[in-house]
């Protein structure tokens, strides 16, 4: 399943956030199962896209890989070395190799620092030798900003320009891996395209490795070589970007048809999933997707009935070859029957009630 020599890999990566009650006598009453048993591998110079809705655990996964938060279980391997538990000087070295770009460029930049200070900060913190001013100017130029603008503060830039500053800062230490968490979600369409092209050009020029996290399948498919689809903390499907359009997991199928296509393109029939993604505090038994799954209803032939195995056993992520894997007891062969099954589910009041918490 793993490539011969991935730059970065995760094994059984898991994160549970405790849920506490009370202030003075706080006690743990449960856990948010944010990420459960995630296995990933990305080769050098490639891009992995992680797609999922809010609460799917995609950002938490990215943050664990960047060592911004510590996993509850599992490991993150950088060129085969476990980086999950390194600290002190070793961690400082690690920080130079993995950088992160955030969704909200305004929140991620210190409003009291100039662009020069922001982009130069990693060089200062890590005592990088050389003329810092020259290096900062070169970085700004690389991301398409004139070095003359270096004395300005974040509020003097447009949203797209701020995201360029965030990218320049991530590039400063010449990292091996950049984790990009929703890098263009906060930007207008025409600005998005500039940033997407910039990311592609930078990768080509420096052979960098990306992990791109987004809710937008269009963005993911544009940037990524491989796509991982997450639902409620687990990877439900992995596929080369070119073949995700023929999904094996019913959730991927629904996501593909729900994502608005390019205007003017023929409209596919949408698989309208009933309800909302369930709470990760009390994930459903068995396959977490079963309460909303149209495929389970196709099998049972009844919108109110789910096959027992889907309700009791969580399906493992099975390797199907050709870089594809899926976690489903009965992978999708055709999406045609899913549209009708989803409609029948939405019309069945019990299901609508059970899935809308």
């Amino acid at each position: 399943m793993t490539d011969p020599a991935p730059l970065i890999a995760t094994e059984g990566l898991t994160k549970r956030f405790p849920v506490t009650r009370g202030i003075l006598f706080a006690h743990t009453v449960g856990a948010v199962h944010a990420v459960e048993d995630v296995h990933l591998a990305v080769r050098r110079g490639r891009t992995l896209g992680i797609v999922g809705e809010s609460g799917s655990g995609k950002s938490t996964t990215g943050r664990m890989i960047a060592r911004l938060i510590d996993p509850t279980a599992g490991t993150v391997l950088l060129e085969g070395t476990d980086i999950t538990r390194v600290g002190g000087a070793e961690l400082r070295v690690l920080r130079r190799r993995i950088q992160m770009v955030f969704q909200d460029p305004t929140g991620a930049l210190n409003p009291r620092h100039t662009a020069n200070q922001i982009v130069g900060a990693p060089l200062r913190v890590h005592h990088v030798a050389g003329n810092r001013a020259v290096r900062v100017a070169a970085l700004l130029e690389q991301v398409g900003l004139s070095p003359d603008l270096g004395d300005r503060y974040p509020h003097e830039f447009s949203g797209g320009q701020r995201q360029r500053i965030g990218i320049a800062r991530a590039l400063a230490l010449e990292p091996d891996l950049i984790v990009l968490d929703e890098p263009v979600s906060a930007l207008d369409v025409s600005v998005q395209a500039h940033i997407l092209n910039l990311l592609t050009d930078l990768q080509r020029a420096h052979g960098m490795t990306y992990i791109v996290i987004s809710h937008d399948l269009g963005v993911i498919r544009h940037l990524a070589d491989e796509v991982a689809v997450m639902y409620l903390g687990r990877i439900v499907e992995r596929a080369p970007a070119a073949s995700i359009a023929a999904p094996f997991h019913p959730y991927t199928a629904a996501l593909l048809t729900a994502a608005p296509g390019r205007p003017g393109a023929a409209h596919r029939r949408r698989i309208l999933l009933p309800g909302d993604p369930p709470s990760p505090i009390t994930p459903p038994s068995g396959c977490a997707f079963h309460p909303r799954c149209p495929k389970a209803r196709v099998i049972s032939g009844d919108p109110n009935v789910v096959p027992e195995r889907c309700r009791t056993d969580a399906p493992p992520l099975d390797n199907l070859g050709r870089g594809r894997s899926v976690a489903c007891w009965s992978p999708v062969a055709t999406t045609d029957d899913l549209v009708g099954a989803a409609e029948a589910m939405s019309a069945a009041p019990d299901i609508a009630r059970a899935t809308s918490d």
Partner: protein
Amino acid sequence: MSDVLLEIENLHVTFASPHGPIRAVDGLSLRAERGATLGVVGESGSGKSVTFLAAMRLLDPATATVSGRIRLDGVDLLTLPSREMQTVRGPRIGMIFQDPLAALHPLLRVGDQISETLRAHGDISRRDASDRAVAALRRVGIPSPDERARQYPHELSGGMRQRVMIAMALVLEPELLIADEPTTALDTTVEAQILALIDDLRTRIGLGVVLISHSLATVSQVADTVAVMYAGRAIERGPCSDVFGQPQHPYTWGLLDSLPAVDGGHESLTPIPGAPPSLADLPPGCRFGPRCGYRMPACGERVPDLVERHAGHADACILPMDGREGLRRAPIAHPANSEPAP
């Protein structure tokens, strides 16, 4: 046989600012029809939200100057006394916004918030109002509406909250629903549900809908007609399939070419060079001129009017009609391929 419900004619909205007047809407004309969805697309600052805030008379007269006509069924809303405006806002035009959590009162049960709307607009008993609130929740597809009515906004998911907003906007049975970015804060699968709901209500009760969105893809899914806005003006408008199928304005081309396709590959995107102009300092002539790859000297002379070229399909561009399609694929020259300093 068009059945015009809302007609906006030569609308201007200007805000006072220390940097001089900001022309947020500058000569806009649009119409929304009964039982149809008008999609209004544009990037931030294009004036799409301000236009409909002006239509609802929700702009502060102390800072915003509004001129032009906004007619609902022939009656000009801009000259209506504010008392009468209260019988329009709610009973005749409902409005929903992007963030339902900010639009709902956090300390009131959602059912009470809906019945409050009913009681503010009519002589109705507490009990009847709460029954109608539950019915309104049922109509927007909320399961167990009587239980949900007793819950607080924080107990509901984002999709449920947006359904509550729609129920509240529709409880007075308005003819027009203005939905300002109703799905932007929602997850993809939930967005699809909400769009399907709005579309279903439109066909079932003949509601006129104005869908304001930055997302061309969202608008293209449900709109009958589309208006593309840029720097306070509509630069293209027409039937949805025409505007997205045979777009005529270079800005619309640019928007469409900027989109990564869900079913596309890694090919490089063609972004629009430059950034939108400052509304306090608009360029002479065509507002899009400085960023346009097809700019001619005449473009800087006067603001081009929106001219209807084919049945219902209008654009505000002075390029000759012959061979526009060919031009789209071969821009003459891009002035600069990055955003200039503000």
